[in-house]
């Protein structure tokens, strides 16, 4: 049923047959050789993409270059680093008309940052990840004028872990790195 090459007419184990066997031997040998060469560089554990927040320059490409319609990159908040400022430079435009939640005063184009009063004079800032598009406007404001507690991370509940992250090729800060899948975040802990 599966005639193998060896069942060919015994009288003419022909040249073609010989070439094919040789070709197969070559193919197997090169595949094996290749395997041997890369096996040493292979890694049992998978890798995922992540942003090194110390290299991010808040260029905005994260919002526009992810393969997903809404970027898998989101702003995250290291609360322990935050000053809980009343005048948050991540939240408010550089020269806000008023310190309220009016859209014209806010950095965030999608109103993804929630500002809640804690106690005088402190406010807590929380990111609504369903709204955040990863544009880094708030990160820019917070890092340049504030404590830098807002930063971007790839969120792995959304990221589809592209073979090559599309943002990594356009990142102005060259901030994208592969990290082990078991430790998939590079969180900021200090300034």
């Amino acid at each position, binding site marked *: 049923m599966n005639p193998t090459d060896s069942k060919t007419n015994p009288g003419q184990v022909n040249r073609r047959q010989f070439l094919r066997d040789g070709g197969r031997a070559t193919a197997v040998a090169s595949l094996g050789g290749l395997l041997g060469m890369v*096996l040493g560089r292979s890694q049992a554990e998978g890798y995922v993409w992540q942003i090194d927040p110390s290299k991010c320059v808040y260029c905005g490409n994260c919002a526009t270059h992810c393969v997903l319609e809404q970027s898998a990159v989101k702003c995250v908040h290291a*609360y322990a680093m935050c000053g809980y400022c009343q005048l948050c430079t991540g939240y408010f435009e550089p020269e806000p008309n008023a310190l309220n939640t009016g859209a014209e005063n806010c950095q965030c184009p999608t109103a993804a940052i929630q500002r809640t009063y804690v106690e005088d004079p402190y406010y807590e800032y929380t990111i609504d990840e369903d709204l955040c598009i990863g544009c880094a406007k708030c990160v820019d404001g917070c890092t340049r004028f504030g404590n830098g507690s807002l930063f971007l991370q790839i969120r792995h509940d959304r990221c589809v872990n592209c073979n090559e992250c599309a943002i990594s090729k356009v990142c102005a800060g060259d901030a994208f790195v592969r990290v082990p899948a078991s430790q998939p975040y590079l969180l900021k802990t200090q300034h």
Partner: protein
Amino acid sequence: MSHVRTPAVAAPGRNIRPAHRGLWALTMVLFLLGGAALFAEPRFPPPDFESGHVLPETTTPPARAVWLEYLDIAVLAGGLIAATYFIYRKRSRTGLVALSIGSILYFGFWKKGCVCAIGSVQNVTLALFDSGYALPVGALAFFVLPLAFAVMWGRSFCAGICPHGALQDLVLLKPLKVPAWLEQGLGILPYIYLGAGVLFAATGSAFIICQYDPFIPIFRMNGRVAMVVAGIALLLLGVFVGRPYCRFLCPFGALLKIGSVVSKWRVRVTPDYCTQCRLCEASCPFGAMRLPSPGKAADAAAQAADRRRLLIAVVLLPVLIGAGAWLGWAFAGPASRMHPTVVVAEQLLRAQDQPPRTGVLTPEDRELDRVRQNPRQTLTEAMGIRRQFNIGTPIFGGWVGLVIAIKLLSLALHRRRTDYEPDRGDCFSCARCFEYCPNELVRRGVLPASAIPPMNPAPAPQVPAPAPFTVAASACGCAGKEGA
């Protein structure tokens, strides 16, 4: 072009005179000190809440679990075995359709089509050329397993495991015949695409095979509009043209084709012997069916013309390779701009004398600001990449020339064939043609044994007809492999 441009990249780097270099060092030191002083302490110390407010945790949703990667490999291996079983033992198209649906669901929609065998070529290439890159074992398995099966049993992977192939296979409703010249011409594209994919992966520039994958956005049900539209358009085309991506683009298919040309076992239309009834002649929607050669007399008549064509092809071989290499060399410069570091290095040189931009900064401005902090490093890197391209593009060009030359050679070579049989390389092992063979229908008990048409022209031998292990006319890229 590149050889003109390379010095332009090189010069400023080399021309940083010692005095400047000192200045640079000083600037850097000042910057670092300033930075350190600036960032050592938070500008606004975190408060001590009197109300006892508890700080929220920063959430970290986990990535895909590691063991799932091993599950993928197991499913792949199991699928390949099942596909091979369905092709050779069961000779069952139904089984392959079931497998196809399964793999569309698992590798396609559930796993979102990534990392796939097609893209894994790039991962393996990158691992070869970049010692810093850790190759995930999943990518390696997706590269090696289908190829290992191909050298033994042909394209079992394409038959029902590859989600891309399965998707196209299932939408194929009204196959039209692609004219031979077009089929042959487009048939070299996968090899060129493969070469380009390897070139850009080896230089660390881009994974173009992933970037321009037409079906991944469909599996993700998400993506940029242009790619979604391209994917849907290709699928619509696939309703009439059997597996357009597989036949005319897929770079991994090119490798599988080479593998299956030298495979140990091959797919045959008939389970028994070929009665030359011609029923299967038009059964293959992928243009893989080869007909018996017309006979000794016709062969002899065509010989003179074939010889001439063969001679032309042999003479053209070195010419094409040389021309390709030369063209590749000429385009090293533009090609190297696929690498982001080269692009930013060129911007750096252009903007050298201008002060940093202020005001609203574009991503490019910010990138420039970043590399300005250490321009030497960027320029050195860019020059290194340029050098890689100066070697890589001529090789790529030569490869394109070689592929075209081998195509011409294979067109000039006529193989003698006694039976109807699928081309080893072009056959996707989809099992469609089996059902056209009366011998197969007898095997299945659909027809009585007496229904088999009489053998034509020779009487049926007792033993299965000698399997004619011919390489079919379109065996592009395989002749070289065989010779090797």
